[in-house]
């Protein structure tokens, strides 16, 4: 079907409610020719795909799901702004046939945008299985646009959909907008006229009717946009007066007038075109929910599910992790040998082996865990269980000042902070996301375990388990405490409403899940990989300069920095070696262990003895507390920057971690000393 040079280019947006099957339709339309990026300024994935049909190059944009064109979350704003201001040549509105009535509410608004659109009536297989009948021809006549029944996952109807999209311009469809009733219609006409009188607005208002309706509803964003751009200050007052009159006559506010009319339009069409089965039996989703959301069984089942995911992630992940470790060990060893035999300068050898391979290898070691974790998260998301999980734990989370959807990232955080931060994308509200991202570094990730194992086995041999447990306990307490603190200090009065759809269950499609897993894992490799590379080269440089000094020995710049920082770590009983270890620990927590062993000059023998020269049991414990609480690693910092799109919040996160770590470690040390421990 592809030709060498398409003669025409069009842009088609794929829009619709969340979970209506937009991405599945988009995939069916574009195949693998897609590009995942971010919308400018927000961390909402922008997915663009290309396809050439009939000599026409079509660019498809998979818009975030939205229930209406009055945005509520950053995702929805992206979708609205794109439809309103970027004016695609056509819109493919994906509608879940099983929730046709609710979806038509969005269609009512899209009709007003005055952009040609095709309605993909998706999930028609479920509609049929439920014994529902939808008269698509009538539906098409009533909304004034082509309607194509589709089943995205089996590609049914995709060809017809493409044909309608290609011929959208030639087709004689006249969308039938909502009739708001005589008074409202008159008011809308009035506003349309007023706006068109202001020439500088004419450009913005290609969809005069939609804009005018939103102004009458008092939509704050559209108001800001129109009144801000207008030099005519009377406009605002005139429209406000129109609105007041209308509201007085209809005895309710403009927003409700419009919403009710749109719902009326949707419900009228719905009842015209749908033939219902008479029985109302529970659906399979109802039956599954009766078990999974059971009053008493719901939480235990969720707990077991989480436990299994966790075990699989770190159990299965262990094998490839070992292979990767072995591979990098082998690579480092053989390069070392190669350099030696070639007579390459020692410094180059050290850069490659100690710097790059150790650093990059240290990150890639996490890859299996991350990929497996994302695989399971994708299953949970696609099947529809994720929303149920949020439903189950919202009560508990709400008491801690968090949102039901914060729970999954926190659980992931016990594995690795990096994917956990990435998983906060399911939170719609920016403040909730920030709050969750800020507490995630306090959740004890698995990379910190080696430090605790090393120190507790040396200093607390008899009660190592209890010491380990105290670390987990402290981690949770600090996370809860910070959540509460941030909630009151930075986000006061934030109560994000919890109004969330519980989508019908689906057996997830393997292809979709693998695609998801791959995209996210690749993002991890690329982003964290580049930052880690730079970070590890810097640390290597500090550890090997000035020239001639042995790597990470007392004569290096790192040691000088450690000595410079010593006053800072003194209060919790550490010396310069501890300072260097913590500094290097920014790259990755495991490095704390290797730095301690190298700098203590122990080799492998008498590690315990060497450690006892640096730490007392009390100062070792304080050092563990500090390690637990400060910034997990440079990859976390990178991913926080990426997800918050803000250096400020990244800095806040690092500063918060350092401050809390210092305070708590010092507190432990001081109180311990006073109580007579040492």
């Amino acid at each position, binding site marked *: 079907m592809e030709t060498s040079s398409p003669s025409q280019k069009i842009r088609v947006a794929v829009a619709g409610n969340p979970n209506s099957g937009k991405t599945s339709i988009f995939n069916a339309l574009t195949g693998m020719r897609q590009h995942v990026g971010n919308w400018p300024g927000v961390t909402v994935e922008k997915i663009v795909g290309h396809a050439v049909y009939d000599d026409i190059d079509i660019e498809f944009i998979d818009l975030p799901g939205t229930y209406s064109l009055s945005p509520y979350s950053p995702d929805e704003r992206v979708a609205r702004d794109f439809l309103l201001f970027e004016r695609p040549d056509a819109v493919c509105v994906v509608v879940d046939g099983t929730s046709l009535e609710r979806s038509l509410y969005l269609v009512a608004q899209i009709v007003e945008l005055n952009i040609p659109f095709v309605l993909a009536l998706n999930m028609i297989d479920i509609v*049929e*299985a439920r014994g529902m009948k939808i008269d698509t021809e009538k539906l098409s006549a009533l909304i004034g646009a082509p309607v194509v029944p589709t089943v995205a996952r089996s590609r049914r109807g995709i060809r017809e959909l493409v044909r309608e999209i290609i011929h959208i311009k030639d087709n004689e469809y006249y969308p039938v907008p909502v009739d708001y009733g005589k008074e409202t219609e008159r008011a809308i006409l009035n506003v349309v006229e007023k706006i068109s009188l202001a020439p500088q607005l004419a450009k913005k208002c290609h969809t005069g009717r939609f804009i005018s309706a939103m102004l009458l509803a008092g939509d704050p964003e559209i108001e800001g946009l129109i009144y801000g751009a207008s030099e005519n200050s009377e406009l605002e007052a005139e429209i406000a007066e129109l609105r007041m009159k209308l509201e007085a006559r209809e005895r309710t506010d403009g927003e409700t007038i419009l919403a009710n009319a749109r*719902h009326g339009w949707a419900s009228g069409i719905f009842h015209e075109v749908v033939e219902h089965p008479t029985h109302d*039996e529970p659906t*399979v989703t109802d039956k599954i929910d009766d078990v999974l959301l059971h009053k008493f069984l719901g939480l235990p089942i969720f707990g077991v599910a989480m436990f299994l995911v966790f075990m699989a992630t770190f159990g299965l992940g262990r094998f490839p992790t070992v292979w990767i470790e072995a591979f990098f060990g082998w690579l480092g060893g053989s390069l070392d040998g190669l350099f030696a035999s070639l007579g390459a300068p020692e410094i180059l050898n050290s850069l490659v082996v100690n710097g790059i391979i150790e650093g990059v290898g240290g990150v890639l070691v996490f890859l299996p865990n991350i990929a497996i974790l994302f695989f399971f998260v994708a299953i949970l998301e696609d099947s529809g269980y994720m929303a149920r999980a949020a439903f189950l734990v*919202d009560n508990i989370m709400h008491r801690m000042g968090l949102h039901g959807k914060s729970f999954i990232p926190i659980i992931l955080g016990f594995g690795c902070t990096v994917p956990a931060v990435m998983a906060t994308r399911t939170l719609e509200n920016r403040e909730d996301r920030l709050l969750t991202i800020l507490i995630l570094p306090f959740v004890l990730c698995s990379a910190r375990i080696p430090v605790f194992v090393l120190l507790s086995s040396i200093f607390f041999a008899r009660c190592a388990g209890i010491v380990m447990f105290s670390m987990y306990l402290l981690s949770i307490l600090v996370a809860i405490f910070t959540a509460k603190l941030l909630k009151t200090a930075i986000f006061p009065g934030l109560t994000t*409403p*919890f109004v969330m759809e519980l989508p019908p*269950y689906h057996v997830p499609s393997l292809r979709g899940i693998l695609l998801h897993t791959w995209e996210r894992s690749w993002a991890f490799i690329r982003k964290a990989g580049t930052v880690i590379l730079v970070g590890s080269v810097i640390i290597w440089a500090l550890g090997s300069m000035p020239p001639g000094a042995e790597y990470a020995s007392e004569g290096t710049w790192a040691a000088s920095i450690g000595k410079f920082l010593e006053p800072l770590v003194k209060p919790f009983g550490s010396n310069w070696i501890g300072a260097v270890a913590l500094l290097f620990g920014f790259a990755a927590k495991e490095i704390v262990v290797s730095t301690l062993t190298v700098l203590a000059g122990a080799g492998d023998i008498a590690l315990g003895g060497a450690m006892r020269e640096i730490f007392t049991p009390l100062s070792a414990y304080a050092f563990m507390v500090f390690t637990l609480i400060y910034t997990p690693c440079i990859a976390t910092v990178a991913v926080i920057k990426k997800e918050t799109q803000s250096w400020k919040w990244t800095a806040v996160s690092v500063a918060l971690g350092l401050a809390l770590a210092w305070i708590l470690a010092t507190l432990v040390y001081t109180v311990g000393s006073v109580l007579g421990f040492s």
Partner: protein
Amino acid sequence: MRLDIIQDGEFAQVIDVCGQGPIRARLMDMGFSRGTTVEVIRKAPMGGPIEVRVKGTLVSLRPQEAMMVEVAPIVRRRGYRHRGRRGFFRGFMNFFENGTDGDK
């Protein structure tokens, strides 16, 4: 009457969505509008969220948000959970064959 005090398994009809601001708009966007019939399906224990069926979709909301929805109870109709639990496994074959929730 407010939606949060409707018992699970009961039906009600929406009269109005009270309050103001984005939450109210959101509720209306999700299908809570005058005249709509809603079915309260279940309530999470200890004041947790409530699950409601509205316009054929399942929506969960906290009691605080449910409080904003003014409803009139429909006493004649009772949800499926008030009836027997016979035929629990009906429809599951179909579910796994089609990979999705089809029920017949």
